[in-house]
């Protein structure tokens, strides 16, 4: 025994320590009361007292209960057995499976050293026009999918799983943090039905779970990814939906521990909390981790402190925009804010690079013209502006795409588009090849050669 409970609130428990108690931050303690084991993690220690955060509900707990140390700490299975399984944040299986020969590893591993990190990788095409064109992805990248509530982050993550994981069947880890249980289960069922469960491992700390669970899912997911990278030498795909919820959970815990918050109630440790997690997502000479991280934007505030801090770790970001969604243009990507560090003339080549510049130029002018039209009407535009206006609307429509995972909403089959087709099509639209074609024909198609449009 290391101590007794003296105070209880919803997300923290204070303990009076015994004289010979030897405990450290992050240790796992437990108590057994009325036959139920409840676990706690040590959050702070003073001379005689320690603050613990409870992993389970505190309803029914009372003062005076004895606490013991759980020597294993928070840990998760670290073997081939993780594939095809579903875990909760604390490393317990929640899909009804049982692993017989248990081989576990603590979920707080050390970061990679400067020397170990490898930053080279090949380009990884997603088949999604607007991503491959504006924000191409490299193996080993951290890609953020940023968006406010209900603009299509989860659909995009699922499309990426469909286009990359299903196509290449590389080992993957899906971490559900603070998102809908329904979606988690649907993804699990879909993969199971398509016989694709054997190469993926899943961790869920969803929005119905308490803040502790939501804050730990990411660590468990990282441990699984590290197993695949380090022990199996794999190029791992790590899908995190949604990394913002990790920060949100940390805020809740910090607030319960009565720590002084910074703006919007975020914890003072915001930056270090995020760095601690993001620095673990890296590639080595042995294997790589490419991560796709959905980032929720609270109150549609892109400059939110947490969102900005997360985005400083990203190699590429895709920003989803409510005004696009409002117009029914999906994926609702804001092309002005979406980019990646691959957009470099030396990497993607002059043609692709120039096309991006030209498209952005067109669409910037288009936005200005929209304002003019709102006052004066289209007829007042010069002929040159009229061309820009109509071609831009075609480009804008061309960047929509039917998604495989959204067939239920759109009733249109999904399309995977090759980058060379994308570049050709865009170049053709800009050069006026389709000036005589009606703009709505460009909505929800794959490549132009694969559509009803004839040049």
């Amino acid at each position: 025994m290391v101590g007794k409970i003296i105070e209880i609130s919803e997300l923290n428990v204070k303990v009076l320590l015994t004289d010979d108690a030897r405990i450290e931050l992050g240790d796992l303690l437990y108590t057994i009361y009325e036959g139920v084991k409840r676990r706690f993690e040590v959050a702070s220690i003073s001379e005689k007292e320690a603050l613990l955060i409870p992993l389970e509900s505190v309803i029914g707990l009372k003062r005076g209960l004895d606490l013991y140390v759980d020597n294993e700490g928070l840990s998760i299975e670290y073997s081939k057995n993780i594939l095809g399984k579903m875990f909760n944040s604390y490393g317990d299986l929640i899909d009804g499976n049982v692993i017989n020969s248990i081989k576990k590893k603590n979920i707080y591993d050390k970061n990679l050293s400067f020397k170990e990190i490898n930053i080279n990788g090949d380009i990884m095409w997603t088949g999604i026009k607007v991503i491959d064109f504006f924000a191409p992805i490299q193996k080993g990248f951290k890609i953020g999918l940023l968006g406010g509530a209900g603009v299509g982050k989860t659909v995009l993550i699922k499309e990426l799983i469909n286009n990359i994981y299903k196509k290449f069947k590389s080992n993957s880890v899906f971490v559900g943090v603070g998102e809908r249980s329904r979606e988690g289960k649907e993804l699990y069922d879909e993969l199971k039905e398509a016989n694709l469960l054997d190469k993926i491992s899943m961790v869920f700390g969803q929005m119905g779970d308490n803040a502790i669970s939501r804050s730990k899912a990411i660590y468990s997911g990282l441990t699984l990814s590290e197993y695949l990278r380090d022990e199996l030498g794999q190029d791992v795909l790590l899908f995190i939906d949604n990394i913002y919820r990790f920060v949100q959970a940390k805020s809740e815990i910090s607030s319960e521990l009565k720590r002084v918050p910074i703006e919007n109630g975020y914890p003072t440790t915001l930056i270090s909390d995020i760095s601690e997690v993001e620095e673990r997502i890296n590639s080595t000479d042995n294997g790589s981790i490419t991560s796709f991280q959905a980032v929720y934007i609270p109150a549609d505030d892109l400059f939110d402190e947490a969102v900005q801090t997360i985005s400083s770790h990203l190699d590429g970001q895709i920003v989803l925009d409510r005004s696009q969604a409002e117009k029914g243009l999906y994926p609702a990507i804001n092309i002005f804010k979406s980019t990646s560090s691959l957009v470099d003339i030396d990497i993607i080549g002059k043609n692709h690079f120039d096309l991006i510049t030209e498209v952005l130029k067109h669409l910037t002018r288009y936005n200005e013209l929209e304002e003019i039209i709102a006052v004066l009407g289209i007829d007042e535009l010069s002929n040159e502006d009229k061309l820009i206006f109509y071609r831009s609307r075609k480009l804008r429509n061309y960047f929509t795409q039917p998604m495989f995972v959204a067939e239920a909403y759109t009733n249109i089959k999904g399309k995977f588009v090759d980058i060379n087709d994308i570049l050709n099509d865009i170049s053709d639209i800009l050069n006026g090849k389709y000036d005589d074609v009606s703009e709505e024909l460009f909505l929800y198609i794959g490549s132009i050669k694969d559509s009803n449009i004839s040049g």
Partner: protein
Amino acid sequence: MESYIDGILNEKIKKIKEEKNVYNFGTVVKINDYIVEVTGLDNVTFYERINIENKAYGYVSLILKDSVIISILKIDSKIFIGDRAFLTGEEIKTYISKEAIGRVVDIFGNDLLSDKKFDSLTKLKMESKQIPIIDRTQVNRPLYTGIVGIDLIYPIGKGQRQLIIGDKKTGKTQLTLDTIVNQKDKDVICIYTAIGKTKKDIKKIYNELLKRGAMNYTIIIAATNDEKTPVLSLCPYAALSVANMYMKSGFDVLVVLDDLTRHAKAYRELSLLSNKTPGRDAYPSDIFYAHSRLLEKGCQHKNGGSITILPIVETKADDITDYISTNVISITDGQIVMSSKNFQKGEKPAINYQLSVSRLGGNVQTDKIKALGAKVRRELLSYLEVREVYEMANMDDMSESLRKRMSDGKKLLSKLIQYKYSPISEDDIIKLFEEKEDIESNNDINNKEDDSNEN
């Protein structure tokens, strides 16, 4: 004389001893509105029900070293410093009667229509346990609202959480009442939850539902405006606990939460009075979790039962990007946005089709309506977007095809206008739109050539 005093003393000591055997009691030392601090109560457990004399009761919301904080739920007469508080050895619970269907009840088992307690009551957890991910199955059965704009374009399925959001007086509550009335003879139990509404409003709603025979399968669970804030804060959890009981025995349940903005404010008040740290907009850090764990109780259970939730959120000046709104949008499976502009124009139900979303879409529609729905939605959104751009343009100068698009769109929009309590069945929806399709396919042939002239 002495023996007389001794007699009284002995009597008192005996009483105290008795109480000590039966109860463990404490003394009120601080009163802050409905938050009361009590010393003593050594054996108290978290979330236990505590009685204060015979005049009030509440639950333990915080256990400190030397005292306990009680949130008061019911007060019959004033509490004073020095009043005695008694343990009950029991977690705070909600009470529901089998006779509650057809009645207006509170969360303590009282029938508000007759102002009496029900005879036989079932005790339920104030908050039911989360449904594990593995016990959930796909949401794919439709729940018809009888409203064309919803059933056809943004459908709701059994087990879905669909938010209704909009300004005051845009018909949010009406939409849910329409939905409840439309469940007649469909074997769905409805629970209308009134959070902080006036007695007058609740009576009106009761009368509306009674008049239309909807009270035969509906319970109204109310926490009226003048209840203590902790009651308002607990009310939706209690309602979902009742829903959970029915779902577990295989029923389909529809829960309306009217409304979560009021609930968020009650929760904020309670948190701040309990000395929690304020975050964004002064809401406590766990306000997201307060709503996410509540709405995660909605699900399609593998046993066949389901809980569908229609939460209501009130906005100001049609802005759905404020903190609470985006929180709830990011939890629910879609949102029906109500627009005050449409309401004023007489386009009722005043749904803003551009901002509304259903994340489940065609998954919850039958095949015959799914194809039609996807088509109508695409046409409607495309019309609304085009209308915005070309509204200023001169109708007479428009190309034939554009002019037709504008007039077709107008016709389409007019088919979505509907009076209250006049549901349209799935078959009638199909009939309503079939006519249009015939005309359109004829015109398509005639207008083929015009398309190319548009630009």
